[in-house]
């Protein structure tokens, strides 16, 4: 039940605003680029040094020198630019990027996020995530509501090493859209066909539920 990855990406795409520069993390966030509302001009920044990313190249036109932060071969649109990593993070740290969308392993009700390390088991590194979450004004987390063994990823307190503190403002999962404010998750929308009860049950952290929880409208 609930949204698939594409559904989550589509819902996040509704948060875009005309003229924004946006950084999309690896995984579901990357899909957001495919659902920019018609007539809206949004540019995608990839922290490895490109602004104005286009779609994947046609078969046979891949260029090893042109990838995104997920190491996928990409293309550049007219008006694109390439730059070094220091300049790229100047854009991010200097808040020239209006929105960051990234995945998470855990999010806490005060906006902490953990997504880079499971002590003793998995360490991939934080990559650009710590810079992104420490700097961005708008951070949307795209993730599943629960982990692979069914535990809620929306927690009172994160258990894993943090990537950033008090920085996440909005979460879109397969079940719901939630905002974080005043130390609690606030249910904003539910996915088509998903009950408020299911969301309550799958959210470990404090969840504020308004009287009316509208269903998402996806194109």
């Amino acid at each position: 039940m609930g949204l698939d990855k594409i559904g989550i990406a589509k819902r996040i795409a509704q948060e875009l605003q005309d003229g924004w520069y946006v950084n999309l993390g690896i995984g579901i966030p990357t899909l957001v680029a495919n659902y920019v509302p018609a007539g809206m001009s949004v540019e995608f920044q990839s922290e490895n040094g490109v602004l104005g990313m286009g779609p994947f190249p046609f078969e046979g036109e891949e260029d090893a020198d042109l990838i995104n932060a997920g190491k996928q071969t990409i293309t550049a649109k007219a008006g694109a630019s390439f730059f070094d990593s220091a300049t790229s993070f100047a854009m991010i740290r200097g808040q020239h990027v209006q929105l960051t969308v990234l995945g998470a392993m855990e999010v806490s009700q005060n906006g902490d996020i953990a997504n880079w390390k499971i002590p003793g088991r998995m360490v991939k590194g934080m990559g650009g995530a710590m810079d992104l979450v420490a700097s961005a004004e708008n951070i949307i987390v795209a993730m599943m509501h629960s982990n692979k063994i069914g535990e809620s990823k929306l927690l009172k307190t994160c258990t894993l090493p943090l990537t950033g503190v008090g920085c996440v403002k909005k979460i879109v999962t397969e079940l719901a859209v939630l905002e974080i404010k005043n130390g609690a998750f606030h249910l904003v929308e539910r996915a088509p066909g998903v009950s408020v009860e299911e969301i309550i049950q799958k959210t470990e952290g404090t969840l504020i539920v308004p009287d009316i929880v509208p269903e998402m409208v996806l194109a």
Partner: protein
Amino acid sequence: MNKTVKNVAQALEGIESGMTIMLGGFGLCGIPENAIKQLVKMGVNNLTCISNNAGVDDYGLGLLLQGRQIKKMISSYVGENDTFERQMLSGELEVDLIPQGSLAERCRAAGAGIPAFFTPAGYGTEVAEGKEIRVFNGKPHLLETALYADFAIVKAWKGDAAGNLVFKGTAMNFNPMMAMAGKITIAEVEEIVPLGTLDPNHIHTPGIFVQRIFQGEVFEKRIEQRTVRKRN
């Protein structure tokens, strides 16, 4: 000033076991692949390598990990490499993980004579442990210090005898900052062009930052994630 050396062996002269070496690249994009193979050949070990990633198991820095030539990695992201994760979790490899923007800026700082700067990245995380915290504009920041290296090895698209470098696409990434930060900077390029060929307005790394330049013999330029779309 002619900084051209005739081959990779000559370019890497003086690199010794125990040294700290910066290597440009993001993933497998823009890595000095000829120089890395030469490091394998030279058999230097106990290296501290500063590089955003650690290659994959059988390519890029992964080759040095396989041969256990690296004592310590200073990186931001090391996924995509099983050898790496195994050596790290077993404790045989020291690892210092750094936020990517801080890594880039710390290299630039070293090259720019800035010994330390404040950044918000990593506040409230284990990255901040032991670091000075100070609030600016109502927001806590960490003091991060410059990262120096005995040698920096960078990869560019084109270069000239003066050491001027031009990068292509996202193969630029960390290369310009690392070129600034090396006590000795070695540039591996796909093509050395005659002096005066490169437009002085389009030079990404001015020659002053480069001490040696050589044309690599073979560029495999392996693609990590080949993503394509079908033609209609």
